[in-house]
C-alpha cells in the first residue's frame, strides 16, 4: 500500500476569532510556513491516512494571496476535528510573531 502524500496544513483563528484552515502542497510548503509564522498561524504536516481524510474537506490555500486570501474560513466543526487530529487539543489561537 502506498503512503499518503504529505500535506501541509496552516490553521488558526483570525483577528476576528474565526476559524481558518487550508492545505498546501509540498511545492508551496516553505513559503506557506514562512507566511504562517509571520501571520501567527500554526502549521502541521499530515502524513497519516486518518489525518488525510480530515484534510480532504479543507480548501486549498494560496501562498501568494495577501490577508484573508492566504488561508480560508472553515466550519468550526471541521476546525475542531483538525485540531484534535493534530494534537488532541482544542482551538489554536494566533500568536504574535516576530517579523524577520
Amino acid at each position, binding site marked *: 500500500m502506498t503512503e499518503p502524500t504529505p500535506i501541509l496544513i496552516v490553521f488558526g483563528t483570525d483577528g476576528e476569532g474565526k476559524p481558518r484552515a487550508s492545505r498546501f502542497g509540498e*511545492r508551496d510548503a516553505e*513559503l506557506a510556513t*514562512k*507566511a504562517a509564522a*509571520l*501571520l501567527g498561524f500554526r502549521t502541521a504536516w499530515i502524513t497519516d491516512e486518518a489525518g488525510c481524510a480530515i484534510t480532504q474537506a479543507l480548501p486549498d490555500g*494560496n*501562498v*501568494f*494571496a*495577501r*490577508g*484573508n*486570501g*492566504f488561508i480560508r474560513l472553515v466550519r468550526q466543526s471541521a476546525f475542531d476535528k483538525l485540531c484534535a487530529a493534530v494534537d488532541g487539543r482544542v482551538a489554536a489561537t494566533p500568536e504574535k510573531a516576530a*517579523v524577520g
Partner: protein
Amino acid sequence: MSNQSKPGELDQATRLVRRICRVAGDPRLIDKLSRDLATRGVRSAIRRHDTGVLFDWLLETISYQGIGNHVAHGYMQRHGRVRWNDIAALLKVRPSCPKLQSYWHFDHCGYQKVERCCAEPDHFAACPLPTHDLRNGRLNQAAYSLVLFMRDVANGDFVGWIDRRLADADLTSAPDRPARLRQAVVEPLTHAYGVSNKVLSMALANFLLAGDARRVVWIEAGAVMIAVDTLVHNFLHRTGILGRLGAGHPYGPACYAPGGCAEILERIAANIDARRFNPAFPANFPRFVQHAVWAFCAEGGLDQCNGRQIDDRKRCARNECPVFRQCDRVPLKPKNGPAR
C-alpha cells in the same frame, strides 16, 4: 470560446491576423526591447540579480497603467520616482502599522492620497507609505506591495524567483505548457496590490523576451505573454473574430478568462509561424502577434483601427484599411445596442 465555433472561423481569423502581422508586425521587436532594457540597466541587473533595479523598472512600467503615457511621464518628471532603496530603508526601521509587517499583512491598506486617510488611522502619522509623492494613493500601495512581494515571497532575489518558477513549469510538456509558463510568473504577481494582468503581461513579456538571451525558458515564457488592452479587444470585436468564435464579452477580466481575447490570440498565433517574419523568432510567438495587432490599431503605431478613425456607431467604412475585405466591420457601439 464557444465549442460550437467552426474550425473555418479560426482559419479566417488567422488569415486576417496574419495579414495584420505582415502590415504591422515588427521583425526587430526583440532587438528593440533588448536595447531599451540595456539602456535602463535592466539587462545588467538581471546578470547581477539586482532586485532593486528591477523593482524600479517594474514600478515605473506599472505607473503608466490607467492613464495616458505623457501624463504619467510628466508627473514622474515633476515629482520624481520612488525607488527600491527608499522603501526598503523605510521598512527596515519597522513602522508601527501592522499592515507593513510583511507581504501577507499588507491587505486593505486603504490609503487615499487626497483624503489623507487609511484603514489604520492610529498609525497614519508615522506611516512611511504616504511620504512618496506618487500620482495617486493606489500607486503608493502598489509600490509597497511589490517591494514586500520581492522581499518576502522572492526572498530579495526576483531573478532567482523567476528562474525557480519557470523551472518548475518547464518540467511539463503538456499541451498547455505555454499557459503554464505564463501563469507561473504572472499569476503570483497579480496578487500584489494594484498590479493588473495586462500591465504585468506586457512588462514581463518584454523583460523575459529580451532580458537575457541565455535563459531559453525565459524567452519561451515571454513569447507567450499577451497583453490585452482596449485596442486589442476592440480589434477582435470590430473584425468579427469574437462574434464568429462565439466569444463575445465586454472588455475587462473576461479578456483573460478561458475563451477570452488572450486565449483566442494564442490559438491564432499557434497557426502563424513567426519565423517567416524573422528567422530568429520562435515559431510560436503570441506576443509578436498581439504586438502587431496593437501597433496596427494604436495612434502611436499605424493608427488604423481605433475610435478616432472609426465611427463606432456604424459599420466601419474605411475601405483604405488593408484588411477591409476580410473584416466583418462589426460596430463597437451600435445605436440602440450595448457598448462592448
